[in-house]
């Protein structure tokens, strides 16, 4: 065969000129050879076509069979991008002042920015990297538009080009009060709760130290800001008003009073014969000595309820606590929210009268713990918001309103969802609330009371309240408390103030509360 081939081509002949070659009928026609290139080409073409058919099948598999699965998965870029590109609804205070809105980064993707650092403890933040916290987290579905206000729109949502239907929130907050609260707390760690006892609307919910929520939301500063905040030993990211648990000290006496008077264990005129003598050396309960600090002021007169509140008598309340009993104390406290998370927009830590588990009644372990809890020491731990609710119960004549942060949510098309005030609990009859209120008024305005609530009184505004100094183990400086309300005759605002490790109430919490009552009056009259 090779020989035959070589005849067709001048292989063996003299070397032809470089330019010369055959172009005739007998030109090399390979097509007729035994091994057909044409056939081989056809097969190669067929093989490639089959391979391309495989590509088509593969594309069909991903684009038709797996399409729905993949494109709705959480890590699908469209799902991620939709979340990143959504223009969150804006947040306003109750007077329409803008608290949170959106800016755009260089890629046109929105990010959150806030009116003031003072809001950090209540609004929290909404960040691409670090998710959401505070009100931004609690109302995330409405703010990001995942939940539509309109049920009909909710049904057709997935068919829309722009699926999200973000809602604006008008909150119960007052920016100027929020800022006043943070400003008065100053460099102290602490919390302020201001609310309207008639409706449960929260006017201010401050926690210090504050943080720059805008810097967490801004993608260019988020990581640096958040890492620093997370490692800050002062815990700025902790919303103290709702998630800080503190020993209440004497402000808890209001809870004891509610339980004792409400259950009928004591009456407002109840006195303890051994109390004046015990002022000197302390009142002995099963080997534990309850002590007091007002002996020189009250001398040998046995105190009734009003005056026990006015001078914050530990012995009167220790005895009352024991007389009321653990069961009654915890169950009346539970009426005001103790023992469970509060029905509130933000997550709350559970306030406790006792850490439970004891067999003495109501979870107390013994009489000593119960006696100590009666005046707010023992194992009692509370959040500032919980203590504001205690004051609100008294201010609203025994009826506790559910605290809330949002007045209304407004959809783009104008649809409005309104949050109306709800009764949380009818704790005590009006008469008992009035008795306790009267005592709290005396604690602020009375000759002796003023010593303990120094600075809470405001000229021209009748303030009622109770101070507290929470003694801490280990010789740490005590927490300073104040809870109260004003005006006394027609309560419109409740204030709870906690200042961590700042000494007696008269030093920090009470004067701070006075400032805030003044700020409230300015706002209410303006």
């Amino acid at each position, binding site marked *: *065969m*090779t*020989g035959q*081939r*070589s005849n067709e081509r*001048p*292989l*063996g*002949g*003299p*070397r*032809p*000129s*470089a*330019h*010369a*070659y*055959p*172009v005739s009928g007998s030109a*090399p026609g*390979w097509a007729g050879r035994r*091994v*057909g*290139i044409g*056939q*081989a*080409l*056809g*097969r*190669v*073409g067929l*093989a*490639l076509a089959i*391979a*391309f058919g*495989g*590509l*088509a099948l*593969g*594309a*069909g598999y*991903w*684009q*038709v069979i*797996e*399409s729905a699965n*993949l*494109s709705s*998965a959480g*890590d*699908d*870029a*469209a799902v*991620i*991008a*939709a979340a*990143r590109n959504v223009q969150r609804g804006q947040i306003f205070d109750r007077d329409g002042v803008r608290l949170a809105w959106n800016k755009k980064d*260089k*890629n046109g993707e929105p990010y959150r920015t806030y009116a003031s650092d003072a809001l950090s403890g209540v609004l929290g933040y909404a960040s691409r990297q670090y998710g959401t916290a505070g009100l931004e987290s609690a109302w995330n579905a409405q703010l990001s538009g995942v939940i539509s206000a309109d049920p009909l729109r909710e049904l057709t949502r997935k068919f829309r080009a*722009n699926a999200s239907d973000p809602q604006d929130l008008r909150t119960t907050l007052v920016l100027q009060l929020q800022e006043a609260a943070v400003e008065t707390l100053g460099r102290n760690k602490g919390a302020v709760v201001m609310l309207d006892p008639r409706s449960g609307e929260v006017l201010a919910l401050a926690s210090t130290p504050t943080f720059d929520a805008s810097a967490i939301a801004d993608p260019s500063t988020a990581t640096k800001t958040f890492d620093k905040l997370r490692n800050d030993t002062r815990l700025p990211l902790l919303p103290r008003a709702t998630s800080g648990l503190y020993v209440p000290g004497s402000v808890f006496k209001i809870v004891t009073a509610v339980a004792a008077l409400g259950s009928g264990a004591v009456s407002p005129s109840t006195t303890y014969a051994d109390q004046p003598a015990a002022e000197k050396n302390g009142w002995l309960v099963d080997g534990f000595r309850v002590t007091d600090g007002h002996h020189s002021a009250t001398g040998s007169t046995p105190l009734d309820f009003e005056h026990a509140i006015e001078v914050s008598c530990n012995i009167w309340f220790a005895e009352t606590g024991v007389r009321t009993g653990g069961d009654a104390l915890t169950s009346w406290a539970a009426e005001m929210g103790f023992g469970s998370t509060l029905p509130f927009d933000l997550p709350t830590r559970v306030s406790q009268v006792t850490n439970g588990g004891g067999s003495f009644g109501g979870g107390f372990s013994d009489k000593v713990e119960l006696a100590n809890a009666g005046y707010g020491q023992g194992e009692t731990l509370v959040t500032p918001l919980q203590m504001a609710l205690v004051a609100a119960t008294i201010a609203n004549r025994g009826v506790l309103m559910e605290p809330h942060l949002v007045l209304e949510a407004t959809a783009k098309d104008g649809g409005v969802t309104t949050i109306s005030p709800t009764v949380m609990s009818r704790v005590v009859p009006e008469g008992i609330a009035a008795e306790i209120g009267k005592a709290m008024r005396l604690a602020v305005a009375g000759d002796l009371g003023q010593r303990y609530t120094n600075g809470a009184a405001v000229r021209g505004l009748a303030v009622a309240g109770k101070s507290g100094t929470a003694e801490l183990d280990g010789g740490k400086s005590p927490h300073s408390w104040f809870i109260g309300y004003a005006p006394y005759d027609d309560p419109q605002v409740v204030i709870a103030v906690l200042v961590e490790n700042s000494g007696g109430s008269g030093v920090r919490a009470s004067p701070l509360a006075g400032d805030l009552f003044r700020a409230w009056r300015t706002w209410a009259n303006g």
Partner: protein
Amino acid sequence: MSVAAGVRVTTDAPRFRIRPRFRGRELGLLVLVGIGLFIGSLSLGATEQLKAALADGRDTPGNLLVLADPGLLLVYLGALLLVHAALVVAGRRTDQVLLPTVGLLGGIGLLLMERLPQDLAGSLGGLARTQLIWLLIGFGTMAALAVAVRNDVWLRRYKYTWAAVGVALLLLTFVFGRDVNGARLSLSIGPVSGQPSELLKVILVVFLAGYLSENRPLLVEESTKIGPLRVPPLPYLAPMIAMWAIALGIVIVQRDLGAALLFFAVFLLLLYVSTARLSYVALGLVAFVLGAVALYFVFGHVRTRIDIWLDPFADPSGAGYQVVQALHAFARGGLIGTGLGGGLPSIAGRPPIPALHTDFPFAALGEELGLVGILAILGLYLVLVERGLRIAAAAHDEYRAILAAGLSLVIGVQAFIIAGGNLKLIPLTGITLPFISYGGSSLLANSVIVGMLMALSERTRDPLPPPRRPSRLRRIFDRGAP
């Protein structure tokens, strides 16, 4: 038989007589391409208007009938018409389907580059503009080759020179190459930088065509039996082994799995075309599998690629991210796609798939044009290959046949490798989708290929090249020769 008898002698320099020849079919197809790209640009323009309106908080844009960057489209279509005009004026009877096919592929790629963020790449005024400039350079090269090349002596005679150039290029890249994403693909000489493997694939085909056509008779007739296997005559096995070694070297040194796969596949296909011996292909495949298994166990980057291929969802946000996101893109596209500009959700201003413009345009088009668009694009590549193989079948001699087949197979196999990688049918390798992917080297090399195919498709009896003096090897083995 005497050489001189009955042979008309012509010179290497043919007489250029310009006689314009109307190319009706090409013009008709180009008009269709123009209409298609015009509609594509309108669709992209409308989507962009809609997106801009949404970003500004408006519900509906004022005017939806807007072309996306009409300047780019006009320049591009104008360039296609210019190439057509040049071919008409030159009066050659070359293939009329290649230009419209390439024109549509390039146009689709250009539309894709227009809708991507312009700062992804490109120093000449953004992604789309840079791509357009390279497309123009490519078309210019294509037209020049199609019009001017009337002789293949310069290719067929100097095959070993070309091979030497290729090996030199390879060595240069080994030594001076710049590492991009862990692969040494890019070579910079002064201000010029490019991917030598793109040029290399053309040189490889030129060399293989020369080598295989010259030694074809021996490869066909002679064989050594090793056990049940018919092996090519042992001296001819050497180039095969060399080829295999070069492919391995590219994988090991350059970490360029795509180019290695492409080179080896094209080599095997051309070996089959020239010999029609499946046993050789089988032998090559055995060598391939052995090499692949060895590489898997020895080299981490190969193992990573294979593992990602086997289960990209094992680490969807890490190693498997690109592949998983590409599959998501296909899935989002569904049957009819999101429309140009409507898909590829932007995260932090970036497309969801890293290196989308070079490695994943197929996935991007899968999302925006849907399965329908994908099938159309696959069809266009098949048309290119079919035209190339047809040119090969009609070629004057074996050399031209193998050359044409090799050139068209390079494009077809390359498209298959990257599309298959995007679709997780085969492991992902970083090579370009011909005429669609962003990148100058790729566009230029593929334009050279199509230009040469056009030149090879000339149907008039152009002067055939002079026969070569047989190589020494061949004289040794060609015992039947006098």
